């Protein structure tokens, strides 16, 4: 089974990010770039499928040279090929722009590897801007079926059997191949790169692709701002319940809660 996993490099989501008051942008200096957590789940899912059903895994990302390190990390945990679509300002692109670039990349990679992908996996969202749109838009542009928030996928008799997680429970879906899935956290964790696999991955080539046509964004970010800080609460003290309720009512009235 031939698989493509689309990955995004994001700032380490275990670090609390603040806003740089000068640039009005998130202060990311010193924050380690990592592969988006949901994309690591997608890659692990692909690696497990490869172990069971064979085939190869290709990873692709859009960005500048710094993203190559994340792609190498993917090569250390199961990916066989890695492609970077060079774009110096990928962070300024909206999900539709990224999906356009990925659509072309899918065709370019299929041509170069002389293969057709049976399954394209994306994380369900990125941990930085969390638009949750790229996988859906990519499927739409490729005119492929898509299932979101999936926790399991298995090829069976020429179709994909998919387990989707919903608010209420699970849903079983069948999709024709090829198809696109966006991956939710399954009940397992991504494997760690081993010393050996990491050393081998460092020697592998990251192939570069160009986005060719100019990609423009339909969305414009007007302002990035932090959520309002929570102010300290008020402690009420009184001798009895009636008095404390009266105090609470007057505080809330003054704050125009009602």
């Amino acid at each position: 089974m031939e698989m493509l996993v689309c990955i995004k490099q994001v700032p380490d989501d275990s670090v609390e990010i603040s806003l740089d008051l000068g640039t009005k942008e998130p202060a990311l200096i010193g924050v380690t770039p990592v592969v988006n957590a949901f994309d690591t789940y997608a890659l692990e899912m692909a690696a497990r499928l490869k172990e069971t059903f064979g085939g190869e895994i290709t990873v692709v990302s859009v960005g500048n040279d710094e993203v190559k390190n994340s792609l190498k990390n993917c090569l250390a945990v199961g990916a066989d090929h890695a492609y970077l679509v060079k774009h110096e300002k990928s962070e300024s692109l909206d999900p539709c722009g990224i999906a356009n670039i990925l659509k072309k990349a899918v065709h370019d990679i299929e041509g170069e590897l002389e293969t057709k992908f049976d399954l394209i996996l994306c994380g369900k969202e990125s941990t930085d801007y969390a638009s949750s749109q790229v996988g859906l838009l990519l499927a739409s542009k490729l005119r492929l079926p898509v299932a979101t928030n999936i926790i399991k996928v298995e090829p069976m008799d020429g179709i994909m059997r998919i387990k989707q997680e919903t608010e209420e429970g699970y849903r079983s879906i069948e999709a024709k191949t090829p198809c696109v899935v966006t991956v939710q956290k399954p009940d397992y964790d991504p494997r760690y790169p081993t010393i050996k696999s990491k050393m081998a991955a460092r020697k592998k080539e990251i192939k570069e692709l160009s986005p060719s046509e100019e990609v423009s964004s339909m969305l414009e970010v007007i302002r990035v701002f932090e959520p309002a800080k929570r102010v300290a609460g008020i402690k009420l003290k009184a001798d009895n319940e009636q008095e404390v309720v009266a105090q609470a009512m007057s505080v809330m009235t003054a704050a125009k809660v009602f």
Partner: protein
Amino acid sequence: MAYLISEEAQDLLQDVKTFCEKEVKEQCKEYDASGDWPKNIYEKAFEQGYQALEVPEEYGGPGLNRVDVAALIEQMAIADAGFATTISASGLALKPVLIAGSKEQKERVCELVLEGGLGAFCLTEPGAGSDAGAGKTTAVKDGDEYILNGRKCFITNGEVASFYCVTAMTDKTIGVKGMSMFLVEAGTPGLSTGKEEDKMGIRTSNTCDVVMEDLRIPASNLIGEEGKGFSIAMKTLDQARTWMGCIAAGIAQRGIDEAVTYGKERIQFGKPVIKNQALQFKVADMHIKTETARQMVAHALTRMDMGLSYTTESAVAKCYASDIAMEVASEAIQVFGGYGYSREYPVEKLLRDAKIFQIFEGTNEIQRMVVANNVIGR
């Protein structure tokens, strides 16, 4: 501050850090209390190949230089010193073979380690600690075999090793010149383990007696030549003790990390306690000592990589790093105040872990003898 390491080692360091944060640091608390050997943690670590860091590239190892490896071992020590000791003790057992073994022996032990096996270095005996030449274990040649008899004690990885490098007297009449070194594989009839030590610290490592009763091994398992065992053991320890300095520096670094984090959180007199210059100076001293120890470790390892002499530097690194690990761990407890003395908090363990580094692989008194002999001359 840290070791100056290659780009690829920086990459690996990030992986080791992530692994240790997620799989070692918190999990080891339970095993520190119980004293059980955390097999599941080690199995995961072996999957990563941590035990094979010191395997030379020509035998399938990663081919990192020693300072690169030190950065990774220190990261393991920051998470848990017992964990790092187990990994490093395996490297210790590789050394006699790498120093004096045949090509076949080197291939064999490296293969065992790459497969996820650990090694154990067996020199110490109940009556032969600092006086390592006083060992009573014997090896008698019988045709194409040697027959080993004796008891080794305080053997790290004793119960869990795949191979052992054992010193034994092939000629008791000529003292240390009659000592030889042998390679013994786990499962050889006559090899057993005895009492497991209930240790004060590094409780996630296994330490026990290793007993040999009419243990027969092929004569080809002799490492180097007969009578060279003491010299091989001393060369082994010369190299290995720097690694103990590396782990000790890791313990000290954990002490700093914990003290700084706690010092920022703990409010007394309306402000974080770290705002007091008394504690700031304490943290500065902790850092000065730790960084000095780390750079001494790096210096000794660089000399090893360059093929220069390193006996004195290695002794200085081990002795200084373990002495300051005790001081820094003690100061970390001081920063925590009463909570530092409680087992609920992570710093009392550091003091317990640090103590052994002043004792094993040559006590710090022996290290001072080594240093003095090299500085003063005989």
